[in-house]
């Protein structure tokens, strides 16, 4: 059915048109300054073609390339593509008057809202300088007493099994006699986290899927459904079931190695999501199984889950639908009582619990939520792991943590804190080209990542992107092996939950307690 827009015309009110009806009156200062070295500029117009925000233009009269800095989002595409490095993008030196309490960002956001009356949107992860606890934990290494291992010459095991582990197993004639819950073997404890087609372009999702295939790990479709072309990567696919239930049907569920129920997302705990209708292209519509051009609304809760009991119902519905063949994961945002919730999830029968910290990425989130709601993943992970151990149910789940994993050391620390594996999302997108300009929600991503505009989406060559992703994960895997070797450990299994390998620096005793680690020097 086609829905027509109904106009409410009030004939009694005479029409008055003010200047503000035609134009948004902006009191905003440009966020960025564009500097063009005219000695270097060759007027090739590459910058003009590369900028979807219409910053650069040719002034025919002066025969010069000029710019509109007020449009610049700081994505640096022009600067990178300029063949003569003639462009530099810097923070605008003209700033609002410095103020200890009212930052320029506050002033800008207030103006934005005063103009539009809307919720301030943003993309990618929390950019505030909240403490990153990874940076305050240091990893141990062996010296003399326990020899370190050289991973270049000696076997080093990063293989990880995703799935619930029974409390005990029976072995008969040297073989496993117990029936095991479904397990997925991955080659390294790194998975690509949920990023939906719709939020990102086809080519990026394809690159991620292919990278997962090549690396022997898994990627997650997010809640955007599975494009028909991507069924061929099913051995490496995690499909998500979220509140929007987009593209969820028996084929989809049975195409996957794992099904994940998405309760929450680190960047926007407690709220749903709206994929704007203009991003619902034909291909996205096929994938999400909704009409083109309509908003794809993911409600805040899943309306069949109002309790842990309801969650159990959905978990087992999915197990029934997949005939108990695949593990079922439940992903939650790291929130204050994450430990108790995780305990409930395990008791509800989930095989995997994924916890997403507050620095996790998003394609679109209200800024107020992204920057102020949730918990650092380090605390949530430590608390969840501890709680599950205390309750004696830690073995019943695989714990995956995500949300701001930036490097191999973060992964080593996460595993030492109790994770079985990590989800990487933003890091993967950076490998593909993302420069964290945070304009994902605009659909105009100049790097071709967070867009459905075919002109922009072509900018990601999935072959190049796949290779970069593979390189990144392989590089990290090497580093993890080096660190393990340094600790004298030859298997990632042995590091799991081994918090004695970590020491805190500059942390309060409460923080150390929560993390379950000792201060450096002790």
């Amino acid at each position, binding site marked *: 059915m086609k829905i027509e827009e109904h106009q409410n015309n009030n004939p009694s009110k005479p029409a008055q048109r003010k200047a503000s009806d035609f134009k948004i009156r902006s009191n905003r200062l440009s966020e960025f300054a564009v500097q063009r070295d005219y000695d*270097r500029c*060759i007027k*090739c117009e590459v910058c003009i*073609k*590369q900028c979807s925000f219409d910053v650069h233009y040719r002034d025919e009269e002066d025969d010069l390339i000029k710019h509109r800095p007020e449009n610049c989002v700081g994505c640096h595409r022009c600067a990178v*593509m300029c*063949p003569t490095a003639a462009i530099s993008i810097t923070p605008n030196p003209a700033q609002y008057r410095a103020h200890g309490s009212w930052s320029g960002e506050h002033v800008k956001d207030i103006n934005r809202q005063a103009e539009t009356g809307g919720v301030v949107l943003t993309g990618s992860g929390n950019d505030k300088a909240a403490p990153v606890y990874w940076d305050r934990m240091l990893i141990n290494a062996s010296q003399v007493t326990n020899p370190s291992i050289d991973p270049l010459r000696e076997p080093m095991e990063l293989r990880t099994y995703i799935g619930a582990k029974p409390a005990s197993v029976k072995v008969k004639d040297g073989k496993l006699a117990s029936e095991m819950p479904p397990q997925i073997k991955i080659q390294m404890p790194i998975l690509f986290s949920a990023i939906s087609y719709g939020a990102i372009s086809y080519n990026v999702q394809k690159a991620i899927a292919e990278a997962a295939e090549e690396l022997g790990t898994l990627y997650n479709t997010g809640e955007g459904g599975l494009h028909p072309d991507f069924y061929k990567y099913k051995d490496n696919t995690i499909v998500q079931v979220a509140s929007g239930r987009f593209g969820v049907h028996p084929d989809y569920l049975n195409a996957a190695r794992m099904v994940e129920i998405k309760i929450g997302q680190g960047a926007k705990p407690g709220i749903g999501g709206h994929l704007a209708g203009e991003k619902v292209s034909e291909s996205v519509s096929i994938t999400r199984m909704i009409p083109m051009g309509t908003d794809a609304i993911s409600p805040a809760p899943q309306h069949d889950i109002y309790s842990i009991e309801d969650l159990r119902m959905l978990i087992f519905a999915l197990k029934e639908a997949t005939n108990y063949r695949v593990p079922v994961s439940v992903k939650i945002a790291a929130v204050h009582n994450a430990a108790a919730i995780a305990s409930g999830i395990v008791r509800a029968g989930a095989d995997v619990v994924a916890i997403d910290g507050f620095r996790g990425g998003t394609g679109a989130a209200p800024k107020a939520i992204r920057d102020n709601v949730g918990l650092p993943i380090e605390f949530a992970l430590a608390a969840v792991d501890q709680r599950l151990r205390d309750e004696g149910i830690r073995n019943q789940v695989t714990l995956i943590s995500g949300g701001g994993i930036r490097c191999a050391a973060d992964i080593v620390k996460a595993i030492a804190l109790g994770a079985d594996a990590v989800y990487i999302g933003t890091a993967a997108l950076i490998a593909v080209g993302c420069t964290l300009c945070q304009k994902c929600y605009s659909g105009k991503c100049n790097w071709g990542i967070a867009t459905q505009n075919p002109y922009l989406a*072509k900018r990601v060559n999935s072959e*190049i992107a796949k290779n970069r992703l593979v390189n990144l994960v392989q590089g990290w895997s090497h580093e993890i092996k080096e660190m393990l070797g340094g600790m004298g450990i030859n298997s990632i299994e042995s590091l799991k939950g081994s918090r004695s390998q970590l020491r805190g620096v500059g942390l309060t005793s409460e923080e150390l307690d929560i993390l379950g680690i000792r201060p450096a020097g002790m």
Partner: protein
Amino acid sequence: MWRIRAIPEVCIGCGLCRVWCKVEHSDSKNIHKAFKPNAPETISCVELEESGCESFAMQCRQCDEPLCAYGCITGAMTKDPDTGLVTVDKKKCVGCWTCILMCPNGVIKRDERNGRSAIKCDLCKDRGFPSCVEHCPNDALVIEESPMNPLAAHSAPLSGSSRGDENILFSEEVDDDE
């Protein structure tokens, strides 16, 4: 032999191929000097084709049956039997532009900088590797390397004696080699 091929699916229409082609075919081979306001005009042998969201770069395909060379009235345009490269001898070219009229891809240009001569993609043979391919930011230009088709030689020496049986050009019955 080498050929450059466009991959329209990932061509982003940035035009850097054109920029670097101009640089390579300038006197200075320096990007700043080549584009200086008073520098001699620079010519790109790459044609960036764009229509809406679609784009690709096209340069000489070094045809096995080069109509440009067949139409050349002076013998300046030839296909090298060893490298497969279709080249123009600037000393011989008189600028009649028959090659421009013959090339179905429209990738031969007029070069009137020092006397009239046709100019076309030379695979940057002085440079060793085509600059447009090297500078394409998205691998939308690739080098295809294929064995030289003996029949494709425009003017082959007597020694080449491999006698293939395939039909060639002009023939309705022809199956393309791909």
